[in-house]
């Protein structure tokens, strides 16, 4: 074990030395000059936590939770596994920015400057065409929320978290922080202390939301932490697909995104949560996503990580009811100066639960992808079945791929399997495509798209297009 750690440390050292080279972000690289209404003084302190809570007009119990979170954050050591967190300077991060007063209900009410940012990303079109609602978060505050009337009529709630807390304080007091407690990990504690924005979704019993809900998060200011906090509750037999997508302009100094997503999937309900993460290349993305899955229910995390300098993110399913199902599909793409430390976690805590983890990773231009996953079969989870598949593609000889699966079994009547393969792009396939007239970079991007097709298939049309476009953009100039 210590040898493994030793090797890990050596490598971390090497990663730290790699220069963070800025990627070509041309289509997304824009920065707006906005007069911020409020910007909290940088650094961590009890005063800032109190200030945030006071400004938001929160109940006293929430302030108490925030302060506990801060305490835990300060006590917990920085993880020594995973990626290199040594360059993350907590004192340089601004913990709360409120870009403008109040919230726009229609697109026209959203300030022009901010609107432009979204237009470049194509959000309004996407909404008009297909999506049920858009909760767009600009900086720390949800700006714009709209839920199609038919869902509202059926009792579906889709609000930003601050409004959710104001309107449904009892639900928040009962459930908030129960799926991901502050003490879970250092960054969940940080989020608990400084959370702002995110979504609150409730789908009533038996209601099936057939079109996906989407929330778009953006970070604009340098050195600004974004701590979105989402709570999703699916009542019995409900169904929902929630999509979260991120892009961010490139800045020179590091920024931090540390979200917490809590999901409760009640009996026979079915939930899919899709993340398309494309933060700028100087962003630390340290996210805790967890779902409690009850009897007969199913939870599916679809997680694509393309951006950030370091992502540490392991969406998890706690299968607590008989026959619950968990699925995690993780796609990671690491280029120059990037480390994607991603994977998934499934805890089988009830009989006849099933899970599947599929990980696809692509490393190129010195990038590093690490799959880190845990499958645990707790005592009493008889008849549990789990399967883990990891595929890694390395496009050149100075990129890195790691696989760290952990399998813990405390029960005998179970079936668990893990498989991983690492390979390179086949010369013959490349040759064939080039003989059909494709350039090398076109051929490569086609192969990569084929490799991650399983992921793209789960996305609604616009997202699949955007994803494919991103991959193609990334692949350009990857040859040579």
């Amino acid at each position, binding site marked *: 074990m210590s040898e493994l750690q030793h090797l890990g440390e050596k490598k971390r050292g090497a990663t730290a030395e790699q220069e963070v080279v800025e990627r070509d972000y041309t289509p997304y690289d824009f920065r707006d000059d906005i007069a911020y209404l409020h910007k909290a003084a940088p650094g961590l302190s009890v005063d800032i936590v109190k200030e945030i809570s006071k400004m938001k007009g929160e109940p006293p119990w929430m302030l108490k939770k925030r302060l506990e979170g801060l305490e835990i954050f300060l006590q917990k050591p920085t993880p020594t596994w995973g990626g290199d967190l040594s360059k993350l300077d907590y004192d340089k991060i601004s913990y709360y920015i409120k870009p403008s007063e109040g919230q726009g209900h229609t697109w026209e009410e959203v300030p022009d400057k901010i609107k432009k940012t979204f237009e470049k990303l194509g959000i309004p079109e996407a909404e008009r065409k297909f999506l049920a609602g858009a909760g767009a978060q600009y900086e720390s505050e949800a700006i714009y929320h709209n839920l199609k009337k038919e869902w509202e009529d059926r009792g579906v709630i889709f609000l930003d978290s601050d409004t959710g807390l104001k309107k449904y304080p009892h639900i928040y007091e009962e459930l908030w922080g129960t799926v991901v407690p502050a003490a879970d990990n250092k960054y969940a504690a940080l989020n608990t202390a400084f959370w702002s924005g995110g979504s609150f979704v409730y789908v009533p019993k038996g209601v099936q939301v057939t079109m996906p809900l989407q929330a778009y998060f953006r970070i604009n200011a340098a050195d600004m932490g974004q701590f979105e906090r989402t709570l999703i509750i699916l009542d019995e037999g409900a169904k929902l697909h929630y999509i979260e997508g991120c892009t961010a302009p490139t800045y020179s100094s590091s920024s931090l995104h540390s979200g917490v997503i809590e999901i409760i999937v009640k009996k026979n309900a079915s939930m899919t949560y899709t993340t398309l993460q494309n933060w700028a290349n100087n962003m630390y993305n340290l996210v805790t996503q967890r779902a409690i899955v009850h009897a007969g229910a199913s939870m599916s995390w679809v997680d694509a990580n393309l951006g950030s300098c370091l992502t540490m993110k392991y969406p998890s399913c706690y299968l607590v009811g008989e026959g619950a199902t968990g699925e995690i599909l993780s796609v990671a793409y690491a280029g120059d100066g990037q480390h994607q430390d991603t994977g998934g976690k499934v805890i089988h805590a009830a009989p006849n639960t099933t899970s599947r983890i599929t990980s696809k990773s692509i490393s190129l231009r010195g990038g590093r992808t690490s799959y880190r996953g845990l499958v645990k079969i707790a005592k009493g989870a008889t008849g549990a079945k789990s399967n883990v598949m990891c595929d890694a593609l390395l496009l050149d000889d100075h990129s890195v*791929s790691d696989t760290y699966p952990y399998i*813990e079994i405390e029960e005998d009547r179970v079936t*668990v399997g893990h498989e991983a393969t690492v390979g390179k792009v086949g010369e013959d396939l490349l040759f064939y495509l080039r003989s059909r007239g494709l350039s090398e970079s076109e051929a490569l991007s086609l192969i990569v798209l084929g490799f991650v097709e399983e992921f793209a298939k789960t996305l609604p049309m616009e997202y699949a297009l955007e994803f494919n476009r991103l991959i193609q953009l990334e692949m350009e100039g990857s040859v040579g």
Partner: protein
Amino acid sequence: MSKLLSETKLNQDGLMALSERLDEPAWIREKRQNAWERAQALDLPQARYTQLRGLEIEKYAAHTLHAGKPDLSSAPAVVSELLSGKSNEDAFGVQLDSSAVQFQLPEALRKQGVIFCDLNAAAREHEGLLKKYLMQDLFKLQTKLHALHAAFWSGGVFLYVPKDVQIEAPLNMLFLHRGAHAGLFTHTVIVAERGSKLTYMEENYALDRQAGALHTAGVEVFLMEGAKVQYGGIQNWNEQTYSFGSRRARIAKDATMDWTLGWLGGRLVVAQLYNELAGPGALAHDVQMAYSHNKQHFDISSNLVHQVPDTKGEVRVRSVLRDRSRSVFSGLIRIESGAQRSDAYQSHRALILNDGARSDSSPSLEINANDVRCTHAASASQLDDEKLFYLRSRGLDEVQAKKAIVDGFFQPTVDNITMELARQRLERLIDEKWEKDEA
């Protein structure tokens, strides 16, 4: 009858007494002293799944010296058979607790320049040769236990096979444990020169089922170009014993290292294996089988480090667990930068016979080159009711049917054992343990 002569403790005084008694060259004494100092600074190993609570190092003797022939009246049958079945034609050694009691090498091999003796004898008689290899850069002081091992090693084995000498018959080593709270720090150095070939089989048995011991095993195997080494290791200590092993091979160009390891005894066993594939064409082959019962805890790790292009490694580990025993497997395939066309395979399979047993598995990959073939797999399965039913319907009773399933589970691994002696011994010991468990 053997008589206990003396015991030294695991402290600075014990270290000085040991080194003086063994009358060692200054450089070895210095190495021991340095290791002892390192031990003070290092912690006990901390692993995700293996806690060392309950291990009281101070309880154990650093060195136990016996006089006379070992008393074999309570020895397991296999030990008596092994000892009585040896002829002058066999190469074998016996160690009781801390010291060698017997070593024999046929004259024909001696004439070819083969060396086979205990490590303390090697320090006296082959000092120059030993100095090149003993705990130089292969063996690593990673934890307190590794450092204590390097400070207090005694007995052990030095096996040297000169260039182009090919030995077909296995060289056998028997490590026996008897004394209560004995410390056994066995260190083995094997050097296979260019084009040589050897088969070495090491077996560990307890003469007493009650007296607990602390055992650390350090093994360093150096394979020069084109050498072939088969290493068989059987561990069957009693269930009061803590056993920690660190086995490392450095495999040069076109050389082949072949491990067959079997884990049956011990209360808590931590066994680490490292293969450094250091030359193109190097091949490492690792087969391990474990059968645990009661509250035994086996923590097995196997690591392949591909340092250069065109190397190949295969790891196959299978564990069968019953009662409240625990199995931990951690494996790492590491492909270093530039090690193109590496080919690596790693698998761990566990069969859990009853509720209460627990298996944790962590097969890892760290890949720094793109033109490679790396696969790994881990699985856990249960005793299949349908298979049991089928076998019973064919006339087997439940005990026989269960055994048939266990045998069937081990079979693919057994098929991969190239060393006949190790295969036979493993099958026999698993059968014996199984019969006792079912009785």
